[in-house]
């Protein structure tokens, strides 16, 4: 099968293989190629010595350079932080409401806020801060706990009903479950609340509901039902509903109460990042 023969023209042996009459000369590797190949082998030995290379049982050889890509990343991050140090300090020491008068600082805060928002906040509030039932929309002009930069800052830093000592807190009681109100009364109050922003509700139920409201709800939501940011009590007269504006949802809210939690970010994010996010959220269009 394989028959090595001498090629007449070049005097070189063939490999002995024959494919339909086509034979291949058994020329040696080009010299330059071989030397390059040997050089890479020698180079690789040097590589083992200076870089991490061999896996050991529970460890690996570190190499004399002590290089690791993780350390390199940390170094790079540290140098980024170092470069930002002065502006970060400036932001931490600034009066939040005043930052927008310093365009450079404000721009820095917005850019940082945008990416930090995406990483930390978008999971609940949405990537466009559009919110979802139970998670407020941060673009609009309706704020449960106040829409000034400082109010937003406090909400982010300490959270709402969070485990932080300084958390914002307020309670929407479960009026039916805790037997404060009767089922009919709950329905009446819901009718009354809806009548504040809609026409054509049942007038008798509204009258009954208004009485219950004055006794049970006005202390937090206010006589005029415009809410109170002290307790995070929402404005009940506007077009924006935290959990939903249909009667069923409102009845559910009154009957079972609401106690959603916004975590405190005080010990998770550093001061500068919290400030950046506060300014970013404030800039979305609804900031007061």
């Amino acid at each position, binding site marked *: 099968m394989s028959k090595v023969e001498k090629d007449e023209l070049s005097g070189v042996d063939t490999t002995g293989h024959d494919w339909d009459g086509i034979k291949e000369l058994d020329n040696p590797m080009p010299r330059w190629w071989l030397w390059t190949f040997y050089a890479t082998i020698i180079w690789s030995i040097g590589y083992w010595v200076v870089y991490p290379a061999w896996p050991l049982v529970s460890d690996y050889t570190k190499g004399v350079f002590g290089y690791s890509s993780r350390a390199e990343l940390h170094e790079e991050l540290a140098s980024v932080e170092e470069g930002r140090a002065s502006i970060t300090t400036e932001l931490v020491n600034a009066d939040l409401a005043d930052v*927008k008068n310093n365009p450079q600082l404000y721009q820095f805060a917005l850019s940082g806020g945008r990416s930090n928002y995406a990483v930390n906040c978008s999971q609940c509030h949405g*990537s466009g*801060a559009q919110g979802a039932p139970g998670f407020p929309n941060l*673009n*609009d002009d*309706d704020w449960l706990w106040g829409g000034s930069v400082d109010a937003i800052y406090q909400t982010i830093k300490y959270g709402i009903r969070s485990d932080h000592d300084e958390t914002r807190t307020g309670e929407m009681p479960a009026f039916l479950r805790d037997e404060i109100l009767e089922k009919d009364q709950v329905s009446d109050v819901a009718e009354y609340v809806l009548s504040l922003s809609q026409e054509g509700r049942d007038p008798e139920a509204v009258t009954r509901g208004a009485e219950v409201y004055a006794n049970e709800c006005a202390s937090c939501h206010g006589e005029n039902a415009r809410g109170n940011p002290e307790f995070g009590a929402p404005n009940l007269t*506007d*077009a924006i509903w935290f959990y939903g504006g249909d009667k069923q949802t409102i009845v559910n809210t009154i009957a079972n109460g609401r106690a959603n939690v916004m975590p405190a970010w005080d010990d998770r994010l550093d001061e500068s990042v919290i400030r950046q996010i506060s300014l970013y959220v404030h*800039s979305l269009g*609804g900031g007061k």
Partner: protein
Amino acid sequence: MDSSSVEKIDVTAVNKKENRSLYVKREKIHPKKATGSFRRLKWIIMGITLAIYYITPWIRWDRGVGAPDQAVLVDIEHNRFYFFFIELWPQEVYYITGILIVAALSLFLVTALFGRAWCGYSCPQTVWTDLFIFVERAIEGDRNARLKLDRAPMSFDKFQKRFLKHTIWVAIGVVTGGAWVFYFADAPTLFRDLLTFEAGSVAYITVAILTATTYVFGGLMREQVCTYMCPWPRIQGAMIDEESLSVTYHALRGEPRGPHKKGDSWEGRGHCIDCNQCVAVCPMGIDIRDGSQLECITCALCIDACDGVMEKIGLPKGLISYDTYAGQNTAEPIKKQQVRFIRPRTLIYGFLLLLVGSIMLVTLLNRSELDVNVIRDRNPLYVTLSDGTLRNGYTVKILNKTHDLRRFEISVEGIEITSRWLQTEGHNEQDLIVVVPGDAVSSVKLFVAANAEQLAGKSSRDIAIVVKDLANGNAERTETTFKGPR
């Protein structure tokens, strides 16, 4: 005249059929100096093209305060391209595409009319090689002297000549690379910085690379660049037809060739005395008598050489001349009026050139000094406000291409709005006035709120955002949409 006074040169074409092989080693070419009308033309064109290249960055052009005063400048740092009265922004890069199309079509037209005129006269490779050979000839002498020097063993004299030659070549390379970087920065400033070693490393690296390419291409590789590296000789076959001019040896008149003694009869033989002058002067090292070939760049130096010989031996000039393929089989050189310059191919190329050129010119003349981009917020698409109205957000980018500070007024058309305001740097402003510095872009956030009834049950309504230049009333209208719930 004695035809024996024409020396027969011992030279063979580098691409002789019998010597052709894929693995043949390059034969060094020592072109002999040619004299004549084409050589003169080539000197003139060389002077003009080199002058354009070296002088252009130094031409000044007044654009007012704050703008560079360099006539031709590719300002990479500020994303601008300046060409005399034209100033282009990055988004207008299609003008560059247009210029490239015009350049390509011009090349097509010239090739269809005159063959490889580009290769022979104005291609940078030809021009610089010519310059390098000129230097070589000035130092080492003409062909014979150079051949002798090549064969001679290394000596002080040879070393000195070679050293001088390569030094000057490198110097030309440095100047060439140096001129290139001047197109990308203010030339006088960069020149001073380069000399005082204060210019950026990119400038030095660019100069170094172009020095190397100029030296290697013009000094060492020469004709190999044309024959092996350049795609144009392959492509141009598609533009040349039998009516295109090319440098042609009139075989009917010249053959059979052979040495000729003074007084012998010309009866029964050709006019070519086989002196090989045409081969000796050829910078590509070929023999034009072998016919039209890939390597020929139609520099016409062989015409000069042959005409000189014909004059000496008392025969009419034009044994080698510019001629068409159609005229090749006639013994006499074609007369100018016989060349069909106007034919479908040239008319089509000319028409396309005119078309693209006029489109470019019209768009350039109607180029607006104001450009507006409106980017609608997409996340969220709309926001319901506490009073029940819908709010949409738009990022409005205003490009002020003038060199003066301008004030622009933004207005919204096509919808009845309840409120609208601008957010610039964190401040909400009811005045929809944007101030944009000269030659700059400003980006503002525009919020528009309207009642849901404005959508008439649909989820979207077409509106327009109009930006008006308060200085001259020019307005740019941008169509967009106002969206609400589905």
